[in-house]
């Protein structure tokens, strides 16, 4: 059995070598200011160039999340633009829900159906090794984003979460009136690697402020939960001098309004409701965004890979952010859009064509294929 396993492993490795070449030469990769090679990344991903137009698939997992819906709308809007219609011959979007086996089946089906590239958000980032090897056998380009898979033989795109939360925490602490006091840290879903990395980012900044006391609570990235735990923290500890929230931060501004909490610096996400409340109530602080524009970036990277461009195996994204003093209506928040609208519609640092207007997204009414 093992002899057979080793043999199969060798064969697949040999086949892999034909379809794509992996090397560790740190040559200039595609748009390095947008797809920033991650620290310590040495692997380069490159495939043999193919003629277009390409058949591209987007496989989403969880549904019913506004960020995901906007991400799918952005991908469709981008693929719909005249300049991209020529290269993308076909775009299929599917959402498979929380069942990892269904998601693997969907990716496998696209591989078997001969799609050129598949961009996906993994439900379970540890479950895709076998799929990646099957894709490499057939020469299908896979791009994993948002929740990067544990496999460095494909391109993975994600923000650097440590840096992400460092930017936020630094801004909050610098805007505080004193370098001492009490800070509330509102964390995400426990056990998730994103929450772990973001917490490390906060800890790194706080290590420079020995006189600041930190109270940690868990908000699960959910506005309702964040509001409840923030209100509880106010009730137990009284006032805070600064608040650092990972996601669902409209819950913080809501809780502050309800408790008449003084306008201390708050660091949070880029959902319209939160940014609107920050600007409207003149709460000092910062909005840091992980944009649904990551979807179109992943699809654009997939197309570039098909055209023979090279990428780092792990690419980090720019981190758009804006402090309260600089917030402008119609640019950083939208009075007429729902609270869940992600105000940063795309990554401007990656090109003007990667940003979308709310109207452009709204025309993509069908978030998923029907």
């Amino acid at each position, binding site marked *: *059995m*093992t002899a*057979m*396993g*080793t043999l*199969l*492993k060798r064969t*697949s490795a040999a086949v892999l070598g034909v379809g794509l070449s992996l090397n560790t030469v740190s040559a200039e990769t595609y748009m390095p200011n947008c797809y920033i090679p991650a620290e310590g990344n040495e692997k380069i991903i490159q495939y043999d160039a193919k003629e277009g137009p390409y058949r591209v698939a987007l496989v989403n997992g969880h*549904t019913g999340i506004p960020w995901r819906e906007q991400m799918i709308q952005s991908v469709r809007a981008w693929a719909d633009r005249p300049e991209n219609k020529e290269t993308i011959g076909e775009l*299929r979007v*599917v*959402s*498979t*829900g*929380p*069942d*990892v*086996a*269904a998601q*693997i*089946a*969907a990716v*496998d*089906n696209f*591989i*078997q*159906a*001969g799609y050129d590239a598949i961009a996906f958000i993994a439900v*379970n980032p*540890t*479950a*895709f*090794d*076998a799929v990646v*090897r*099957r894709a490499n056998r*057939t020469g299908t380009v896979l791009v994993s984003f948002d929740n990067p898979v544990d496999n460095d033989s494909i391109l993975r795109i994600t923000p650097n979460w440590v840096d992400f939360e460092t930017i936020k925490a630094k801004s909050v602490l610098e805007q505080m009136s004193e370098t001492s006091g009490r800070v509330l840290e509102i964390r995400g879903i426990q*056990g*998730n690697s994103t929450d772990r990395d973001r917490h490390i980012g906060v800890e790194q900044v706080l290590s420079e402020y020995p006189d600041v006391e930190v109270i940690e609570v868990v908000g699960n990235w959910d506005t309702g939960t964040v509001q409840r735990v923030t209100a509880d923290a106010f009730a137990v500890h009284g006032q805070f001098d600064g608040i650092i929230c990972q996601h669902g931060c409209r819950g913080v501004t809501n809780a502050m309004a309800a408790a008449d909490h003084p306008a201390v610096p708050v660091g949070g996400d880029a959902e319209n409701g939160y940014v609107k409340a920050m600007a409207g109530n003149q709460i000092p602080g910062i909005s840091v965004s992980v944009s649904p524009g990551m979807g179109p970036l992943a699809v654009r990277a997939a197309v570039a890979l098909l055209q023979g461009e090279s990428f780092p195996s792990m690419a980090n994204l720019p981190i758009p952010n804006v402090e309260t003093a600089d917030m402008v209506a119609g640019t950083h928040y939208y009075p007429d859009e729902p609270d869940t609208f992600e105000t940063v519609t795309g990554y401007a640092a990656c090109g003007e064509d990667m940003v979308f207007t709310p109207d452009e997204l709204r025309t993509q009414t069908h978030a*998923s*294929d*029907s």
Partner: protein
Amino acid sequence: MRSSGIFKTQGRTLFAWGVFAILMGVFLSVHPRGASLGVFTTWSNQCAALALLAVGQTIVVLSKGIDLSIGPIMALANCIASHLVNGSPSEIAFGVVIVIATGAICGLINGLVVVVGKLQAIIATLAAGAIFTGLALLVRPIPGGDISVGLSDAMTMEAFGVVPSAVLVMLGAVALWYPIRRHPIGRSIIAVGSSEAAAEASGLNVARAKIAAYALGGVFAALGGLFIGFQTLSGDPSIGLTYTLNSIAAVVIGGTMLTGGAGSVVGSIAGALVLRTIGSLIFFIGLQPLAQPLFEGTVLLIAVSFGATRLLKIKNRMEVFQ
């Protein structure tokens, strides 16, 4: 009555395979690649875990029981596999044995609660399922772990480059069951499911037969969890969610009577293949995979209704018990 009953059972099995053959024909004509080894491998990989669970569920149903914990057992086995089925060949072999033993023990617990505790199977196995899910979450709170890549390749690619290994896995499940079926244990499982009183009167050990059916069901559920591990190379405590209902649907489509005593694992495998092929068809026609539970539920309801039409024809209630 007896001879026509046997004919009826085999007719149902043949019917399930007939439906499957038609669906497969449509699937291959819709598929952009058509019939090729790669397409068969992908398809059979999607079928194998459910087929294994369907076999397990069939054995329980044949004994006139039902196992609502079969999905959770599968998830627990998958999570344990993600800790143990890796490393050296002997470690892998040890891991596989432990995973299968876990399934057997879970099934045994189900059987004991039903037989000794005299609880209804639906309630007992539903509650046990919650316990097994809890254990799976303890074993692996978030998805992850490792499963031997070599073994995974051997089980999910093609054997000798010509047959998808997953097809051999499903054939192996049948090959595993038939000797048991011919053994006194297997015969008493079916006898008990057919008529408990008659089996008791004939001197068969009813309790032992029922417990054995649940334990065997647990073993096949564990094999299903192992196979999912080969597909995902990791463990996931939530993996079993949809499998319990699907395994029952496969059993019903395959022609096994939910009232016990009559049916075949070969039919249930056809049922599993029908469900999975419908899933693939939905995908390639362009419908959302999320619509699949709707179709599965509808198919299950229709299949159960067809099974119940027999009751409408009965003039004398006593016929049911003959």
